[in-house]
């Protein structure tokens, strides 16, 4: 659903995410939550009770890698849907320079972002590469008994890189949840029902608004 013919809908709304994208997002989201919870349980003795609550340590260990496969599959689909729109543009460089305004919610001072702003693009790629690292290290950790003694460096590397990559995704996750649930009203609906208001587009993604409507978004 990466075509720019984003449907204009009645009552001043526009379709941002088609059904396939939304469904895929929630596969990623739910599998990630399971991975996060069981992963945190394996990460810290203080949180091991989470694994116990989710069916026991053995079950959590057994299902964590399968959830990882689901997550990675969903991330691959996302790459298919959105990667072309996540390339860095000139606007992105300016966006980072104006980050201070963004944090202070002074959105009118921000350069006109396209369908995705620089921060979202950074999040996308960060998740994508971290997911690859998690998958590769995760496969090694899934079958440690298959890695012989003379290849133990693979296990040593994986045991360290897997939590490091996971911490990256947690940082992304915190920002992502904060932005989509708390900071940007309307964003959450975009991934449930798929549509946002034209005002939303105008305000947060003026470049995208221009593509949809055919004329530039008025500056406030």
């Amino acid at each position: 659903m990466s075509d720019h013919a984003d449907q204009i809908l009645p009552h001043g709304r526009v379709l941002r995410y088609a059904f396939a994208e939304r469904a895929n997002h929630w596969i990623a989201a739910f599998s990630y939550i399971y991975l996060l919870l069981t992963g945190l349980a394996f990460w810290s003795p203080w949180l091991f009770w989470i694994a116990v609550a989710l069916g026991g340590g053995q079950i959590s260990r057994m299902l964590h890698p399968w959830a990882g496969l689901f997550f990675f599959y969903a991330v691959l689909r996302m790459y298919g849907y959105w990667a072309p729109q996540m390339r860095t543009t000139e606007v992105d460089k300016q966006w980072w320079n104006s980050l201070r305004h963004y944090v202070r919610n002074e959105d009118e001072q921000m350069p006109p972002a396209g369908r995705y702003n620089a921060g979202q693009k950074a999040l996308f790629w960060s998740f994508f590469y971290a997911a690859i690292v998690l998958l590769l290290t995760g496969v090694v950790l899934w079958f440690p008994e298959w890695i012989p003694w003379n290849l133990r460096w693979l296990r040593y590397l994986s045991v360290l890189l897997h939590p490091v990559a996971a911490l990256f995704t947690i940082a992304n996750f915190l920002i992502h949840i904060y932005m989509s649930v708390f900071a940007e009203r309307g964003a959450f609906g975009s991934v449930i029902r798929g549509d946002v208001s034209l005002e939303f587009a105008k305000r947060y993604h003026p470049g995208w608004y221009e593509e949809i409507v055919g004329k530039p978004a008025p500056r406030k």
Partner: protein
Amino acid sequence: MSQATLRIQKISGHAGSIPGEGAQRQSAVAKLIDTTTCIGCKACEVACVEWNDMPFSPTEFNNTYQTMPETRWNYWNLILFSEREKEDGSLMWLMRKNQCMHCAEPGCLEACPSDGAIVQYTNGIVDFQQDKCIGCGYCITGCPFNIPKFNKETKRVYKCTLCVDRVGEGLEPACIKSCPTGCLHFGSKDDMRVLAEQRAEQLRTHFNFPDAGVYDPPGVGGTGVIYVLHDAKQPDLYGGLPKDPRIPLSVRLWKGPLKWLGNLAMVGGVIGLFVHYLRFGPKERNVELKEPHEGAEP
């Protein structure tokens, strides 16, 4: 029950303090293996299999007297045979009894994420509690001696228990009992060290082994199994005994600095975002809605 919990001084994956830590007078036990008098008869291998009632598994000929290439989930004790040609042309047939070393600072316990799956008793014995094991295999990565072995059917890990069930009743481990040459000794760690040093001194002085010594690696805090070697400078000749074993660096980094950084970052992140919301609120607070439509969202 309290007797049992007081005899445990370290628990894997455990938050909070451990009731048995420092609660017993320290009396670490140790197994002394004198490789210079081992004849490779494998009585100790048989004793271990028999005492622990382990099921047999197939073996095959591999150009050596060694029973199998490494220990297995159901074969915890293995004599490793290696032929060493010395510079003067003579040949030594080295035999080392290989099993869990029961490190004072066990890498397996350090790496294990499951609460109580690996314990260390006050006598130094490191024991796997398979009912708490989640089968992740981190212990395999934490061990510098390639000891824990995974069982695919039960999805648990197994290793030598230093016959903790026998030692707990005041008996010596089964392997010690079976040894016909008396090259295996068992007692307190202090006594075994004294015995080992005496034997090493005897080897150096009277038997023309100037490099004979005791193997009790400090990198893991010392071990509950110590060796007397003809050549303590080259332990790797004895079936790949590591010269300076330590818990692998990546495991130490993961459980040390990364744990701190990660926890700080996660908690800091959540607090930081919360503070941001208090300070700045959501994004559209300052925006005045234009042309509100029925049912439309801002």
